[in-house]
């Protein structure tokens, strides 16, 4: 009786895993019916390729390179987005000037600025950073402006009756008041940034003929266009998915740390 909650939790995990395991089993069964030497990916071959790519270190270094670009581009977008968002939220004049510009760029997908980025910045890291920063800027600024506009006006008035300066009100009342929304914006931005970097590296890889742009997206491009290794492409896809999941979990942890008042 006492270990019942544990049993229950185990049961939940079993239920979650049943379908994926079955799908992989079916996939493996289907792959085993193919003639030997077929290029079609199969679970066991994928695992073997994963081992190979890990042992050469190429998979890890490509992932780290992509992640580094995401973190740097995301950081640039966050600093700019939060600062501009706070200014827009605090000043109507700033908001009225910036809003039309932001709204007219927002529907332009990150991939749509790639041609200009490549022409101006080449096929290396600067272009990747530009794409990531562009993609993650919008969720950050839009959620920051929204968060600032939702800060309870009473709190600002209360602060003014305590002899608190306007600048301190911005940093000590408006910023923390908008923080839940800002953190949500950065979490969305990080997701978008990771999606954008893979697409950008794939596209840049195509442009540079598989050259030295690096990153996991470029690695996928090489397996697609030169080596034609479907198993390796599946490995890359799986890594992209796992990294995205880990990033999201990390942000949820940060959210709990930064916003302890939202139980």
């Amino acid at each position, binding site marked *: 009786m006492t270990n019942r909650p544990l049993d229950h939790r185990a049961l939940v995990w079993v239920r979650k895993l049943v379908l994926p395991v079955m799908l992989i089993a079916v996939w493996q069964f289907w792959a085993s019916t193919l003639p030997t030497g077929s290029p079609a990916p199969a679970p066991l071959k994928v695992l073997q390729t994963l081992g190979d790519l890990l042992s050469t270190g190429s998979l890890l270094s490509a992932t780290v390179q992509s992640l580094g670009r995401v973190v740097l581009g995301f950081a640039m977008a966050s600093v700019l987005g939060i600062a501009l968002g706070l200014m827009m939220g605090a000043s109507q004049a700033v908001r009225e000037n910036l809003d039309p510009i932001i709204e007219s760029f927002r529907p332009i997908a990150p991939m749509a600025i790639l041609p200009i980025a490549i022409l101006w910045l080449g096929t290396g890291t600067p272009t990747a950073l530009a794409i990531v920063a562009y993609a993650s800027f919008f969720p950050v600024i839009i959620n920051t402006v929204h968060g600032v506009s939702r800060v309870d006006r*009473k709190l600002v008035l*209360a602060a*003014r*009756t305590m*002899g608190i300066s306007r600048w301190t009100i911005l940093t000590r009342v408006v910023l*923390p008041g908008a923080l839940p929304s800002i953190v949500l914006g950065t979490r969305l931005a990080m997701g978008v940034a990771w999606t954008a970097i893979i697409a950008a590296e794939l596209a840049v890889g195509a442009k540079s003929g598989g050259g030295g742009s690096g990153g996991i997206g470029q690695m996928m491009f090489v397996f697609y266009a030169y080596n034609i290794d479907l198993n390796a492409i599946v490995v890359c896809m799986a890594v992209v998915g796992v990294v995205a999941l880990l990033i999201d979990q990390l942000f949820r942890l940060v959210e709990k740390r930064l916003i302890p*008042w939202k139980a």
Partner: protein
Amino acid sequence: MSDNVPSPKLRLSGVSKSFLAPRTGLSTLAVAEMSLDIQTGEFICIVGPSGCGKSTVLNMIAGLEVATEGVIQKDGQAVTEPGADRGVMFQDYALMPWQTVEGNVGFGLRYGTPGQHLNKAQRNQRIAHFIDLVGLRGSEHKYPHQLSGGMRQRVALARLLANGPDILLLDEPLGALDAQTRLILQAELLRIWGETAPVTERKTAIFITHDIEEAVLLADRVVVMSTNPGRVREVVTIDLPRPRAGKARTHPRFGVLVEHIWSLIRDEAYRAIGGDESLANPTEEATA
């Protein structure tokens, strides 16, 4: 300047406030030609039906809104902007949700003018003193969402007092509480205001309420306001002896004063809820 009349702590002379409706551009008069002198240490309650401009008057004294006409003077100086000398306790407390009890009580001391001349140790001592005064010791590290309504109200009161204002502006601070908590906090408010202390040691307090009994229990004078536009109908002096906490309600004058104030606002109160005019003047039988 005559020597025998003390200069008032707060003087409202011919104060009017009109608001412009943003769409129509029409102006509505919220407060009309209000004049009132308030002495140091006085406890003033403002009562009146909804929409009589009570909160507008308080916000003008706080400096959060500017009078359209007339002047508000504090110690002879015109009030033009908010300042920590006039502390406000808002209806819904306006506590910072991301600050603990300690952080909220010390908010003005840490970031505003009230704590400028204090070092960190002095600030912390002051914060602890006021947390004790309102009976919140042990809850210092809780966030507002973990507190009951009565406890949040205490936090707001401690924050107000910690900032050391000369004038306490209280906008229906007990409005959202249940009846028992309200009775307890009325008594505590009187104690903290300094009911048992000499008049010179009391704070000047302006307290807005819907509750006539509460006004009579707390106030030295009750300002009765009427609507459309909000203006002073009568200023009723409450001649009940102090200290009142716990015993004023049984005083024979208590009911008389409550009844008198109610008679001043009854008609408008009925109209405000869309009731029949005849209900406002019930027969003897109906009241019995």
